[in-house]
């Protein structure tokens, strides 16, 4: 067989030998190369192996960094602070922890709202939009229920709406119709629900105009 045709086979054998040789020679004195004789070739091999290893590490780093989220967490990793953002960290939470988290979130949202400056014209116009959307005439057309204890206050970007319903079914459907009705003025909303032992429900809605959310992050 011509010598050239043997090259690939010899190359593979040599590759395996390099790995075995370097492994065995790992703890030996530098003057004893895996192939004996000249030290140049093993040194080159070692350098290339190290270069290869560095490339593998670079790839792993790249792979890992591309998988972390904006908080630097790997997928499925619980959040670093607080009891957890259950929707994103996917960590289990007790009912008490969820209630505490909701209370804390409402406090945070309310603080932002009360600190928002007042834009009188926009606030008055938005409050009229909300009142119209939740009027009997508007809701009756869609078969939705008029809420009780309606209160709405608007500042410069956000409106806080509080309303009550006899049960969750009424609340849920009215919410759907309501959000559609105010969508052109207030397209974004964070909705909190307080469920009472008698089955009644209170909604707390923070509805805001487009792009107002950008400042929240």
């Amino acid at each position, binding site marked *: 067989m011509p010598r050239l045709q043997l090259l690939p086979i010899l190359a593979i054998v040599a590759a395996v030998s390099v790995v075995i040789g370097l492994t065995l020679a790992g703890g030996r004195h530098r003057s004893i190369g895996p192939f004996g004789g000249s030290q140049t070739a093993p040194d080159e091999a070692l350098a290339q192996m190290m270069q290869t290893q560095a490339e593998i590490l670079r790839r792993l780093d790249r*792979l890992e960094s591309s998988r972390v989220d904006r908080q630097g967490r790997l997928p499925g990793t619980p959040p670093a602070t607080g009891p957890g953002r259950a929707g994103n960290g996917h960590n289990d939470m007790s009912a008490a922890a969820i209630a505490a988290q909701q209370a804390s979130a409402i406090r945070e949202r309310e603080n932002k709202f009360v600190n928002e400056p007042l834009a009188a014209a926009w606030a008055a116009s938005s409050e009229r939009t909300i009142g119209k959307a939740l009027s009997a005439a508007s809701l009756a057309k869609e078969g939705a229920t008029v809420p009780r204890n309606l209160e709405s206050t608007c500042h410069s970007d956000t409106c806080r709406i509080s309303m009550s319903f006899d049960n969750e079914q009424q609340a849920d459907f009215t919410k759907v119709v309501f959000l559609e009705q105010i969508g052109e003025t207030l397209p974004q909303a964070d909705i909190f629900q307080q469920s009472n032992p008698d089955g009644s429900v209170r909604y707390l809605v923070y509805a805001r105009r487009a792009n107002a959310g950008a400042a929240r992050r």
Partner: protein
Amino acid sequence: MSRHIYFVPAVLVFAIGLALTPVRQAAAADSKGISATACQPFLPTTYAEARFQDNAIYNPTAVNQRVICPVNKDYFGDWVAGDVTLQAYIKAGASPGKVSCTLYGGGASWGGAQAAYTATSAVVSAGTASSFSIADIADPAVPYSIEGWNVLCTLNAGMSLGGFYFVEDGDTDGAT
């Protein structure tokens, strides 16, 4: 010739093999179509009132009808405003009409918060197709207790919903 000459091709074989080894990385963005037939009627709308066709849902009645459709999030972590867009394809029947869609995340009755993003199309002329988008979508600044996003659309009389194009411009698993 020294026997060390065989060492060079060996290293080359190893290096080439390494270079050709595919490294699976997370996708930088994920865009997908969502068929309208993934939707379901949202009560009190029934299947008779939201008529499913081979490529759309049609409202054959004279009043508004609603459907709700799943939106599968592939993003790693929180959505940030500007990274996510949901575009709805619609068509008017014999008379002009509009479609309004609200994207919901989380559930208000499950604790935490529920996020809602609404957009309404312009009036679409009779017999013509159009589209509109819900943009500036972000995970709520407050937490919610369940994962899961849905889009709930209200179709005026005679309007059809053909589906959605959903873009997550960020690190995703690239899955459908």
